[in-house]
């Protein structure tokens, strides 16, 4: 499997031709966003975005090997955590659970419409309730898993809501600074942070619970005693009842007993939609994240409706092309879209680290090739955009967990976290791979990477498929033949014999100063 320029160009063209007119309007009344939004029906939504994460799940998913039940307990725990967190977001707070990115929740508050104060208040209180839930309900329910703590972030502002277009595989996507920033400000475990915009919108009694961190315009939420939290929830009419939450968790544990939870390795490419709490995969896998650098600024800069439509058209073209490169050009799984980034997974051939790593890095190069060569040819307005890619390998839990009808494809493991981190640290045009990936690569690929101590991984700059191919020809010796084929689209020169090729002995180049 490989990336090909003509195939890429053709499918991007087809997608653009079939995309239809994009409509962006301001959301001015309550609506079911999951029904309303499509690839072309987009809305500008004023809201508060919240991210909350328990990163320890990922570490356990990779490191836990000793005990069959321990791993099942982790799967059960993640499943039940996601179910109860979803209930808290949607039933108790009236928010929208957009999805879980592995262990990280992304939620949105947009009702009451344009009521910034109320939206910020809900976001703030949700962070406090989730922290309380983990401390008071979840941890006591899973004493054997560890003492988890939650990290979270919130930001308020405008974002464009849209959706990817494939039937049975649709995800809500939110584009705009606030949808990104809330995730970016998440710090170490146990810390809750909010943006200045969120802080400014809060009522005074909630502001008093925050402390500004240096001059970063980020505010950290102080530790709030349970009694104080209950008072605040009462005041703001949030009906959080930790006893009832405990009952729901206990019910869920009974409904999903460890004995019925299965996990296994995979001998063929995983069918993500066949996974569930009962059927999980634990595989040696490469995680890959590809992010469009500068896209948030690009869309925030778009002022007129026409500019916004163009920006969304660019996003949809890139998004679909990235998914196709990951899953069609290469033997991988497109796990999730997360705003303007795509998450992929490679795990075949089973347990063959070098082959899996090679396939994934070839895919990363394919992603860069599409971005730089075909997307920009079809969409010159995308010229300023670039792609940053992060790649790592390790044992990964692959499943589809959560509440019925809202199950998210999730991958949990250290490699998922590290790949995401590498991608976030890389600049546009870079591919960042871990030491383990680097050491698994063949010489023809690893020679393009060098260690970058600032980023903390091995990095290749502007590496596209033609460069990899050409670097392989560099060893052609003096006097060896070159093989040339040509047609109306160009001339191809190789060092390997090709059918129908003309043969020449290239002259030994000379120079006079």
């Amino acid at each position, binding site marked *: 499997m490989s990336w*090909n*320029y003509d195939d890429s160009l053709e499918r991007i063209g087809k997608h653009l031709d079939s995309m239809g007119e994009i409509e962006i309007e301001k959301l001015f009344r309550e609506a079911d966003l999951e029904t309303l939004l499509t690839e072309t029906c987009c809305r500008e939504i004023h809201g508060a975005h919240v991210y909350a994460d328990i990163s320890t799940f990922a570490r356990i998913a990779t490191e836990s090997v000793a005990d069959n039940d321990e791993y099942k307990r982790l799967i059960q725990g993640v499943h039940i955590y996601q179910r109860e967190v979803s209930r808290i977001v949607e039933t108790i707070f009236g928010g929208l659970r957009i999805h879980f990115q592995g262990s990280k929740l992304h939620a949105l508050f947009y009702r009451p419409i344009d009521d910034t104060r109320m939206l910020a208040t809900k976001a703030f209180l949700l962070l406090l309730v989730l922290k309380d839930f983990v401390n008071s309900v979840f941890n006591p329910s899973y004493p054997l898993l560890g003492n988890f703590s939650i990290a979270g972030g919130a930001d308020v502002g405008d974002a464009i809501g849209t959706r990817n277009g494939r039937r049975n595989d649709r995800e809500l996507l939110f584009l705009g600074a606030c949808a990104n920033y809330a995730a970016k400000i998440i710090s170490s475990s146990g810390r809750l942070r909010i943006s200045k915009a969120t802080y400014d919108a809060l009522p005074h009694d909630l502001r008093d619970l925050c402390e500004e961190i240096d001059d970063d315009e980020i505010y950290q939420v102080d530790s709030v005693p349970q009694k104080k939290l209950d008072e605040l929830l009462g005041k703001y009419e949030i009906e959080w009842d930790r006893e009832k939450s405990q009952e729901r968790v206990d019910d869920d544990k009974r409904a999903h007993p460890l004995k019925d939870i299965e996990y296994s390795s995979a001998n063929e490419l995983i069918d993500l939609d066949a996974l569930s709490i009962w059927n999980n995969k634990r595989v040696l896998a490469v995680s890959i994240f590809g992010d469009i650098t500068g896209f948030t600024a690009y869309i925030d800069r778009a002022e007129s409706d026409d500019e916004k439509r163009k920006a969304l058209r660019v996003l949809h073209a890139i998004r679909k092309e990235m998914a196709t490169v990951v899953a069609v050009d290469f033997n991988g799984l497109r796990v999730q879209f997360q705003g303007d980034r795509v998450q992929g997974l490679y795990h075949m051939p089973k347990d063959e680290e070098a082959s899996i790593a090679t396939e994934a890095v070839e895919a990363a190069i394919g992603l860069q090739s599409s971005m730089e*060569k075909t997307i920009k040819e079809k969409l010159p307005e995308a010229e300023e955009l670039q792609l940053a890619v992060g790649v790592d390998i390790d044992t990964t839990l692959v499943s589809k967990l959560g509440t019925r009808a809202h199950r998210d494809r999730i991958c949990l493991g250290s490699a998922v976290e590290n790949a995401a981190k590498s991608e976030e640290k890389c600049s546009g045009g870079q591919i960042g791979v871990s030491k383990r990936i680097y050491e698994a690569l063949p010489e023809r690929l690893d020679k393009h990477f060098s260690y970058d101590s600032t980023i903390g991984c091995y990095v290749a700059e502007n590496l596209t498929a033609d460069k990899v191919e050409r670097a392989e020809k560099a060893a052609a010796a003096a006097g060896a033949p070159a093989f*040339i084929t040509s047609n109306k689209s160009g001339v*191809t020169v190789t060092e390997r014999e090709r059918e129908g090729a003309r043969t020449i002995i*290239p*002259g030994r180049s*000379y*120079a006079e100063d």
Partner: protein
Amino acid sequence: MRELLYLVGPTPKTDGRTRWFERDEGDERLKQDRALIRHDYPDLKFGMNWRHKKIFLDGTITLRAECGIPTRIKTRLVFGDYYPAYEPVAYDTGNMFPHIADRHFYVDGGCCLWLPIETQWRQQEATALHSFLDQVATFFERQLIYEASPDKSWPWGQRRHNIAGYIEFIQEALGVDTFLVSNFAGLLSGKDHLAGC
């Protein structure tokens, strides 16, 4: 053919010399060359600089990697007064590559394809121009390979710069070491003579 080319500008004043393409055999060669490259190098077109009365071939050579990615290189071949006895000169007119000796370019963008003595130009062959363009395309491909290879390798070999390139050639041709060739270079060129003679 010749008449057609003149149509691109006013009829030049003649300086009394007859250029190669003004002779019937030259005109025939031009016609053949045009047909020869039409299929494989369709984006190169013949033209004439009427002021200098020089025929040139101008346009783009598109190099396609096997994965299909195209790289378009603006190219010009200038045909001297002694064509086809002598090869044309190829130029990178789009400044795609640095025009420095280490990349085998003259400062004006002219390509140093080979030592003159090692020329691959086969004036007797009817397909000489086509083969020459294959060499030019390969020369540009080598530039791209050089840029793509992390250790900056120049494929298919190169000669050292200036006189060292000639010495290297002679050394290889005679199968002798550099020391001998360097010491006898003066004699071989006729600049030196043996003491006492």
